[in-house]
């Protein structure tokens, strides 16, 4: 019956616990060195092999030896001075050693706490919904372990502990939601630990050279998502302007200094497009806008040539609202800028000049020259490909006259050079073109594979005009996306078939659903910044809550939630009282008010007799009630009618 709490860890709990810890650590294995991973594996295996024969666990000496070897592995194999990986390596070593000390029930607390900490370190690397769900399950599992060891006798079935934990977590969820929504968000970190190393950058750098865009294009990664307030513009108008490249040395194209020049202006035609961009972190400063943007994004600089540049590189998901006009005519080219737009590198070859002279001889209109150049790309044997052959030191020349295989940056840069030779100011614009509409979310997904480069030429009557030489070669590029799945190395680019067949269609539909959920995840979970918090608060008219006021509000709402849950717990678990008894106690209370309380040792019959003796006037109702009560509670009377009658008798009873 009664026992001193069982001190050893039940086998089921032990094995589940070690397994859960393994799952919590596992994603770290890819950035830990093999020695460390093996160290953890060996210790886990040892602990599982020992199971409940805890006397076989390593003694103090062996444990010291293991600790030293673990620390040595961390010290010897760390890649750079004290980085994130070193800290995590240490954590894994400590967890492994603690497994060796997992003897009694109380030891489980330490490993559970380390487990929680390891889970949070996972989020420094990955924030996908999948990982978050797995880690949520592990957290739940570890909580179940805590409940399991708090039984006196090891529970035979795990269900009571699981049930209890689910209740606990279920009640903790509203608290989490309140804290998450109301916890005051800071716009920047408290301090920089210097642990964030830039890894895996996908996006434009500030230089474009042959191959840089095509390299980017091979990634399926999302560059940004766009929510439109109105209808989504048609595909051929989806030019996402990023960098404007003026300067070239004949190989690389760079933006050059444009900050202090006179701002360009344009005359908008048609209706504006209103949208919000959610930019994935790219560790660059470029923001992308639909050609051409109007208005300003906070915390950014708007450059004269309609580039938008963040003040600091974008390391976290960034959202901004913009207005754009897709039809416009621009004006305002200063002489300095005109000069910059005509600058030629040293490596212009005679045959390039010869080609341009041929067009110039045919016409004097700049517009006609542009058209002739486009015709040239269209009619000659130019091939649009993701992996063009290497081009040497003079890529423009080699591309135009020898290989004739290239991606958009080849077309855009060489076209720009040809225009400049012809005396037409021209510049290269890099960004994205197109994007897929997610039918579930009604938003546009722009991927790295949509990366694109085009040309803008200055025509006196129209201002800067967008010319996309790629469209002359592969007009499908503008209407459809590149089909990366069917793309073979070196082959001409295939475009996504408009009717890809049922299976592929299904896969695409699934992909859209996943991306929709993912987008919401990014928007509401990962992207819930102080800005979105303000938006959320203003939705409820609470945007005056800021800083410490918000903190107080958070505490108040949390307290309220806890109070409601407490009341819920107390109400749902009240001691069960027979309704008949309740009614009878009500009757006693009425008499007690008349200074005739029932004594604790008095049965209903004795009580009735005593009261009747003192108040003979009440004899009739008291006898009736008492008789019925005894019948209902102890006797054979059981009909619902008699219960109702009993209730009525008591409620009508007024001494």
């Amino acid at each position: 019956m009664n026992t001193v709490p069982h001190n050893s860890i039940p086998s089921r709990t032990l094995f589940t616990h070690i397994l859960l810890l393994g799952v919590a650590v596992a994603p770290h294995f890819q950035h830990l060195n093999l020695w460390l991973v093996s160290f953890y594996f060996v210790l886990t295996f040892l602990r599982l092999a020992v199971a409940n024969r805890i006397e076989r666990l390593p003694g103090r000496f062996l444990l010291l030896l293991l600790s030293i070897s673990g620390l040595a592995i961390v010290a010897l194999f760390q890649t750079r001075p004290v980085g994130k990986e070193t800290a995590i390596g240490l954590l894994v070593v400590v967890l492994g050693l603690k497994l060796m000390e997992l003897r009694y029930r109380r030891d489980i607390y330490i490993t559970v706490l380390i487990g929680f900490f390891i889970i949070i370190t996972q989020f420094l690397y990955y924030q996908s919904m999948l990982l978050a769900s797995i880690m949520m399950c592990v957290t739940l599992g570890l909580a179940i372990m805590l409940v399991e060891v708090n039984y006196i006798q090891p529970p035979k079935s795990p269900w009571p502990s699981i049930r209890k934990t689910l209740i606990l977590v279920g009640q903790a969820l509203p608290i989490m939601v309140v804290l998450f929504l109301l916890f005051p968000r800071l716009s920047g970190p408290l301090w920089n630990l210097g642990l964030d190393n830039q890894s895996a950058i996908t996006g434009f750098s500030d230089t474009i050279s042959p191959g840089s865009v095509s390299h980017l294009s091979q990634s399926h990664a999302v560059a940004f998502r766009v929510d439109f307030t109105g209808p989504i513009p048609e595909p051929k108008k989806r030019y996402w302007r990023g960098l404007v490249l003026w300067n070239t040395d004949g190989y690389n194209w760079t933006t050059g200094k444009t900050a202090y020049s006179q701002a360009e202006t344009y005359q908008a035609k048609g209706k504006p497009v209103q949208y919000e961009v959610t930019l994935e972190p790219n560790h660059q400063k470029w923001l992308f806008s639909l050609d051409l943007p109007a208005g300003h994004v906070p915390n950014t600089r708007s450059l004269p040539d309609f580039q938008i540049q963040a003040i600091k590189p974008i390391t976290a998901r960034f959202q901004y609202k913009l207005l754009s006009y897709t039809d416009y005519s621009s004006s305002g080219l200063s002489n300095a800028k005109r000069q910059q737009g005509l600058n030629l590198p040293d490596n212009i070859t005679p045959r390039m000049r010869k080609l341009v002279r041929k067009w110039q001889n045919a016409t004097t209109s700049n517009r006609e020259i542009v058209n002739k150049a486009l015709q040239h790309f269209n009619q000659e044997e130019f091939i649009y490909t993701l992996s063009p052959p290497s081009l040497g030191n003079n890529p423009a020349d080699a591309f135009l006259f020898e290989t004739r295989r290239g991606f958009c940056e080849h077309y855009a840069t060489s076209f720009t050079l040809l225009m400049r030779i012809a005396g037409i100011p021209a510049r290269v614009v890099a960004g994205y073109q197109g994007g897929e509409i997610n039918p579930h979310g009604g938003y546009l997904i722009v991927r790295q594979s949509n990366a694109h480069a085009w040309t803008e030429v200055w025509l006196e009557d129209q201002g800067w005009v967008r010319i996309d030489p790629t469209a002359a070669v592969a007009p499908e590029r503008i209407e459809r996306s590149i089909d990366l799945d069917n793309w073979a190395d070196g082959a001409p680019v295939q475009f996504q078939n408009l009717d890809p067949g049922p299976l592929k269609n299904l896969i695409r539909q699934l992909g859209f659903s996943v991306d929709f959920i993912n987008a919401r995840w990014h928007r509401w979970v990962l992207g819930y910044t102080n800005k979105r918090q303000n938006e959320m608060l203003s939705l409820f008219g609470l945007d005056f809550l800021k800083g410490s006021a918000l903190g107080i509000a958070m505490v108040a709402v949390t307290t309220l939630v806890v109070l409601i849950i407490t009341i819920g717990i107390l109400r749902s678990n009240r001691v069960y009282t027979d309704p008949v008894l309740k009614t009878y106690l009500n009757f006693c209370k009425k008499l007690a008010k008349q200074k005739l309380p029932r004594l604790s040792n008095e049965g209903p019959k004795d009580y009735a007799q005593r009261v009747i003796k003192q108040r003979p006037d009440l004899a009739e109702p008291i006898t009736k009630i008492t008789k019925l009560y005894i019948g209902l509670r102890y006797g054979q009377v059981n009909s619902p009618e008699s219960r109702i009658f009993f209730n009525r008798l008591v409620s009508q009873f007024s001494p």
Partner: protein
Amino acid sequence: MITAIDLSRFIRRATPDKEGSAELTARRIYILPTRYGFLFGMLLCAMLVGSINSANNLGLMLTFILAGLGVISIIHTWHNLLGLRIQPEQINPIFAGQEAYFPIRVENRRNTPRPGILLEFAGKTMSGIDLDSNKSGELSLHLPARRRGILKPGRFTISTSYPIGLLRAWSYVELDLSCLVYPEPGPSTQHLNPPSYTPSATGDRGVGTDDFAGLRQFRQGDSPRHIDWKAAARGKGLRTKLFGGDRADQHWLDWDALPGFDTEQRLSRLCRAVLLACESQDEYGLRLPGVIINPARGAVHRHQCLATLAHFEMGSSE
């Protein structure tokens, strides 16, 4: 130990009602984090700072769900004790030097189970139980009895750290627990036990078992083993054999028969003598200064004698 002011007077504790049972009510339950609970709190702080610093919303979510779990389990841990009824069970007397055992009934009047209920006394966990819904169970408290007399353990603690062990709720309970401690049985003293044959004034009434004392007419209820079957066979009718000797081993256990010993030594020896007399089913009486218990037999008599020894010169008697 605080001696100047007895702080324990200010501690709220559960005291017994008229029926001797105590209920753990809301105000009587204390709750604090355990060692691991404090560690958990520190961990949460570290996780919070880390998450803010890296603007990591998933980290914040994990921190907040764990914080929520901690807050919710305050209620659950407290609620695990709330309304628990505690009642002493019958306590058997023991001899000094033995361990006194106090069984304590805990009753769960709720439709949900209450696992992990512990009884702690003098800083040690004595016993624990997982109570099912609407069930009661037994916990126990035991402590060594060094001296004869009445042993009162006083206040003990009912605690729980269910469900997650990061918090401990407890309640001080002061039930009317007392255990009668007989003196420790000393070495047997030969000259205390010589049977002192006292002739019976009314004669031997044949209720003993040792010596044949005569025959009488059979009566309903007599043991068939005592029927004189030989006589019956001779046609003399059913007669029952009577045995006497019930006064044979009657003796007095006398305080004054133990000169040269101090009080405790005498009581110990007298205690042993009572036990020996019981073993040999003798009839015995007890003579202490100021107390005389007439010779008799049986469990009640034994308890009376031993209790008298236990209470002798202890200032209280029952």
